[in-house]
């Protein structure tokens, strides 16, 4: 019902379509300009523009609603636009491979945080050992590739699965604790893992693992520049496109999990465990399942990292990285897949770009975090109640057919 109302308010027809694509193009240009600008002027201009836009739209709800309704009405076109623009990123950043690398790093954080969001955002399980689980993925992939020469697709898969398996180990103490105590247990685990990795010989100790084979899929090496015939892109373009592919797959999976009984069950466990239990939910089983699932995402991002950089060592997986992951989920928006993407983008790109003010950058980073949490305490894109209209709408045809068939049988 609410959807119909929105459709009435939207800009219709070609105008709506052009507006949708126009908004995307302008946003894209503003963001890409940040990367292409060597100084920080564009960044500052963008921040001012963004703040002005937020203030303006907070006062003009009608216009904001109309625009978001237009975007919703032109969903398909909007997605096609986004995909095309994302595919174009390596072309735009052709001359600045460094920024392409940063964008990929942000992508890996998104991957990890999609997993963390399943744990923290959806189910309410604080996990401050994200970096430690990334280490499991990275070291598994690195060791398997170095010692046994396994192909990349297998080491990536193994990285994700082994991380999942090891998280069962942590889950035993996790099961006994809740809230702040759970946070403490995961912090302890984080430090244990780093210290162990640092002190064991077969993990390379403090020197870490060197010369991990870079990604190679069935003979196609990611270490060669990407030659498209008319243009040759930097080798990072390979990694970029692969990250994009993985992110789309994982993002859709996470979104679908959210819009399913699993999402409902997780949210009930998060909000009221007792209510969940008395409604027949096996709370521990679900917590374990979702904890392991989330860690598989995190492990995959670690494995990806080790095959992209070729060198991993304990400081790559230190506690501060876990904190960044948690910040992304809280700031982006708990239990909101798009929020995670936005949060990771901001929290990874921003400090990199702020390098020009050197030591002050982390101070500014901190101020930005605090300000955002004061004005948007539930995250930039907060949790929105699930709607089933779309799911039912999409399969309505099939559902009606099923009903007819049933009716026919009865007659």
């Amino acid at each position, binding site marked *: *019902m*609410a959807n119909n109302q929105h459709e009435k308010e939207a800009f219709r027809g070609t105008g709506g379509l052009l507006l949708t694509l126009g908004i995307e193009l302008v946003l894209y240009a503003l963001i890409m300009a940040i990367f292409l600008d060597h100084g920080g002027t564009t960044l500052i201009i963008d921040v001012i523009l963004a703040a002005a836009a937020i203030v303006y739209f907070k006062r003009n709800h009608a216009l904001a609603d109309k625009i978001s309704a237009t975007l919703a009405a032109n969903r398909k076109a909007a997605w096609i636009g986004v995909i095309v623009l994302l595919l174009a990123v390596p072309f735009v950043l052709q001359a600045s491979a460094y920024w392409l690398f940063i964008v990929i790093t942000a992508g890996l954080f998104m991957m990890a945080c999609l997993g963390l969001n399943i744990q923290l955002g959806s189910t309410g399980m604080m996990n401050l050992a994200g970096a430690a689980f990334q280490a499991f993925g990275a070291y598994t992939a690195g060791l398997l590739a170095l010692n046994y020469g396994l192909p990349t697709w297998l080491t990536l898969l193994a990285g994700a699965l082994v991380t999942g398996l090891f998280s069962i180990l942590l889950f035993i103490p996790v099961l006994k604790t809740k809230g702040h105590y759970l946070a403490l247990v995961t912090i302890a685990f984080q430090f244990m893992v780093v210290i162990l990795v640092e002190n064991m010989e077969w993990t390379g100790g403090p020197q870490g693992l060197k010369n991990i084979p870079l990604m190679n899929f069935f003979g196609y090496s990611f270490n060669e520049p990407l030659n498209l015939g008319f243009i040759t892109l930097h080798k990072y373009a390979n990694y970029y496109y692969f990250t994009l592919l993985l992110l789309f797959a994982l993002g859709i*999976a996470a979104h*679908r*999990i959210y*819009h*399913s*009984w*699993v*999402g*409902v*069950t997780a*949210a*009930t466990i998060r*909000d*009221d465990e*007792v*209510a*969940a*239990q*008395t*409604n*027949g*939910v*096996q*709370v521990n089983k679900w917590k374990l*399942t979702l904890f392991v*699932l989330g860690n598989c995402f995190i492990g995959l991002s670690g494995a990806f990292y080790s095959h992209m950089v070729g060198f991993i060592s304990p400081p790559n997986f230190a506690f501060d990285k876990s904190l960044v992951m948690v910040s992304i989920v809280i700031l982006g928006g708990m239990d909101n897949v798009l929020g995670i993407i936005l949060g990771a983008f901001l929290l990874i790109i921003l400090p990199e770009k702020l390098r020009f003010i050197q030591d002050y950058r982390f101070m500014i980073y901190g101020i930005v975090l605090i300000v955002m949490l004061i004005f948007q305490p539930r995250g930039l894109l907060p*949790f929105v*109640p*699930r*709607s*089933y*209209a779309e*799911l*039912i709408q*999409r*399969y309505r045809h*099939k*559902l009606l057919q*099923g009903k007819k068939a049933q009716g026919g049988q009865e007659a």
Partner: protein
Amino acid sequence: MNNNKILYTQDLSIHFGGLVAVDRVNIEVQRNTILGLIGPNGSGKTTIFNMLTGLYIPTGGNFFFEGESLLGKPPYEIARKGIARTFQSSRLCLDLSVLDNVFIGMHPRQKHWLTSAVFRRSALAEEVYQAYEKAMHLLNIFNPELVKRSSEPAGRLPQIDRRRVEICRAMAMSPKLLLLDEPSAGMTPEEITELMNDIRKVQQESEDITIIIVEHVMSVIRTITDHVVVLNFGRKIAEGTFHEISHNPEVREAYLGKRG
């Protein structure tokens, strides 16, 4: 006669440290009736509910549901056997939509989980559609307004509607035994009248449902219960029809104090 008992307890007891909260209580509940459980504050009514739903493990005695002892079974298993409940202080997930709150009641019957969620959306859609219709049907019985507001967060509803949603959630389980823990708490007299109608609707809606209700408002107990059990300091001090117990001197003493 035995066949007609849906639930009975045998010397059900629990103590927390030195405090005996429930002391050798024997209750029998006949199928398809409404049993009132009354008593002054702290007499152990909610504690009994917590034991019957597996949240507390009794320290003594036993209880049988449909002839089977459920002693020591975890809450989710007891729920799956067909015992549903509401809570004194509402335990809805206020951020979640009204629909989601009702859907969780159908959790034990849902068949499509992770793999369907990601790979078999059409199978999930079918189950969602059925659940959706059932939830809307339940909400409509209690208040047609709830159907319109079904996608709003439960936290935006007034108190009485929240309680209705909680009853809907319990009913979504298609329970055989429904435990209502002080459903009238925090309601106005008009709302209480509506609530009594709601409870009658619950009975009409399901062919086989037994209700135990904990209540302080005597008009509710008088109007809707078939049988009343009175507790005081964790013990059963009387039982019978409302008329019988309201003339019982021990009950009057428990509620009003000894006549000086």
